[in-house]
């Protein structure tokens, strides 16, 4: 058997980011002033150590489910793989440019769906000729229909998620990172998007999928990574990891 080709390597990755955690004290000008006088360095800025010493290697053709409780660092890890959130120490190596698909993908809500399609595709680096060629396919896949002429602010969260997924999957990706993007869609869309993920995997890409739906992970992934409070708890066959995860969560109940 030939040596598998790695596409993503995470080498002892730590991610720390700073958040402004509300105003300290009573939040009045007086307390802020006192804080400056006492030279306390902005106690409101908190460091969050979101991912701790995570190491793994992903190979071509892998579909990896990332599971774990809320706040365990799953989305942060995906952003780091995408190169959008630089690690504090350690390194992430990728072959090709990873693309992140998330529900939080910001589009311009005042603009119509079709303008968002064009803008999103341009931002991904597609040419206008490519966009013209793919446009119908994108709209068709999103299943939004006549709503494409309306501003995105009138869309339901499910519709917005469908459109974003359709836009992002218009490009062929070597490495695709899917962050809960399928959670808000209806059953029909979920089936379609799961098929799309399988197609992408068949094109010898690598797919990472963050999901709280363990069924989706079992259906689409061959491998799973379990993150627990930022540390990598278990990495292996999807069924084994999901089984271990289920055992622990039910035991804690």
């Amino acid at each position, binding site marked *: 058997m030939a040596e598998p080709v790695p596409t993503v390597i995470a080498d002892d990755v730590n991610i720390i980011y700073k958040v402004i955690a509300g105003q300290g004290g009573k939040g009045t000008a007086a307390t802020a002033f006192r804080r400056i006088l006492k030279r306390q360095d902005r106690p409101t800025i908190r460091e969050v150590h979101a991912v701790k010493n995570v190491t793994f290697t992903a190979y071509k053709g892998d579909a990896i489910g990332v599971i774990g409780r809320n706040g365990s660092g799953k989305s942060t890890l995906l952003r780091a793989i995408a190169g959008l959130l*630089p690690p504090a120490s350690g390194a992430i190596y*990728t072959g090709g440019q990873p693309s992140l698909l998330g529900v*939080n993908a910001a589009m311009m809500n005042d603009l119509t769906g079709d303008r968002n399609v064009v803008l999103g595709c341009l931002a991904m680096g597609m040419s206008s000729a490519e966009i013209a060629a793919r446009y119908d396919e994108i709209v068709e896949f999103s299943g939004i229909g006549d709503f494409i002429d309306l501003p995105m602010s009138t869309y339901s969260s499910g519709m917005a998620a469908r459109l974003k997924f359709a836009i992002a999957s218009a490009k062929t990706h070597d490495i695709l990172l899917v962050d809960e993007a399928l959670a808000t869609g209806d059953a029909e869309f979920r089936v379609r998007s799961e098929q799309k993920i399988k197609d992408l995997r068949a094109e010898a890409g690598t797919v990472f999928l963050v999901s709280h739906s363990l069924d989706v992970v079992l259906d689409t992934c061959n491998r799973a990574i379990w993150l627990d409070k930022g540390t990598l*708890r278990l990495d*292996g066959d999807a069924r084994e990891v999901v089984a271990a995860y289920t055992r622990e969560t039910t035991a804690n109940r």
Partner: protein
Amino acid sequence: MWGCRVRAARLTRMSNAAGPAETVDLAALAERHGLSRSSARPPLGGYLRELWGRRQFIVSYARARTYAMYAGARLGSVWQVLTPLMNAGVYYLAFGVLLGTKNGIDNYAAFLICGMFVFTYTQRSMTEGSRALALNMSLIRTLHFPRATLPLAYVVNELNQMAVSMGILFVLVGVTDGLAWSWFLVVPALVLQTMFNLGMTLIFARIGTFVSDISQLLPFVTRTWLYASGIFFSIPDKLADLDAPGWVIHVLALNPISAYIDLVRRALLDQHEQHALPNAWPIAAAWAVVVLAGGFVFFWRAEDRYGRG
């Protein structure tokens, strides 16, 4: 106990990974397969090429933002014309009529509005630009694109507005003073000012991302700049009144905004020579080149950190 678990996790990984790769250093493995660091900053030349590749995005984004800005208003994009018109009206009313400060200038309305429009172009580029990245953080954390596209799109937006304002100014000067060939000099003046604005916007976009206080502070900075730049009065006249020594005007002429305003006034206004500043063209050009190049490098040096916010 905790360490044990992590080690156990790594063991599982290794048992899954086929081949001899597991014994090799991961960095070496990455290099052998040609993988690159995911959050590395591209080299300056590559970054410029990438930016050039996204020029369509910059223009479309600017257009979309202009559209979105007026989308809620009933008059829509008519406001793009109305806003500068009303601004000009208010300044003329306040300074020309109520305070009666003609300051010995023939066409005071045109003189004042010239200064106001040129100043507003730089001011808005800076203040809007300081929020260009902060307001688009979720887009930045979602899609991969050269971050400089956002501040650049903001400047394109303001340039578009400036073109409308200039149209209004042409009509005003045309009616009061008549047409002149020298008007064409407005084009190189605006090119230089746009270069300067691009640099300023890039600088403040980077600062504004990491120090959000700057957007509170900027209005005061720009307002001070407004009063110091000779928009309401002629700098040479003012200095003559004060009996200032001769070198003072050479120092004041170094102010980039004064230079850009002076260039547009030279192009549009009759009898501006007596109010003109020394060396306006070389000063304007020097600022444009230095600030654009410096601002671009300054912005690019933090390219890999913008996602962190």
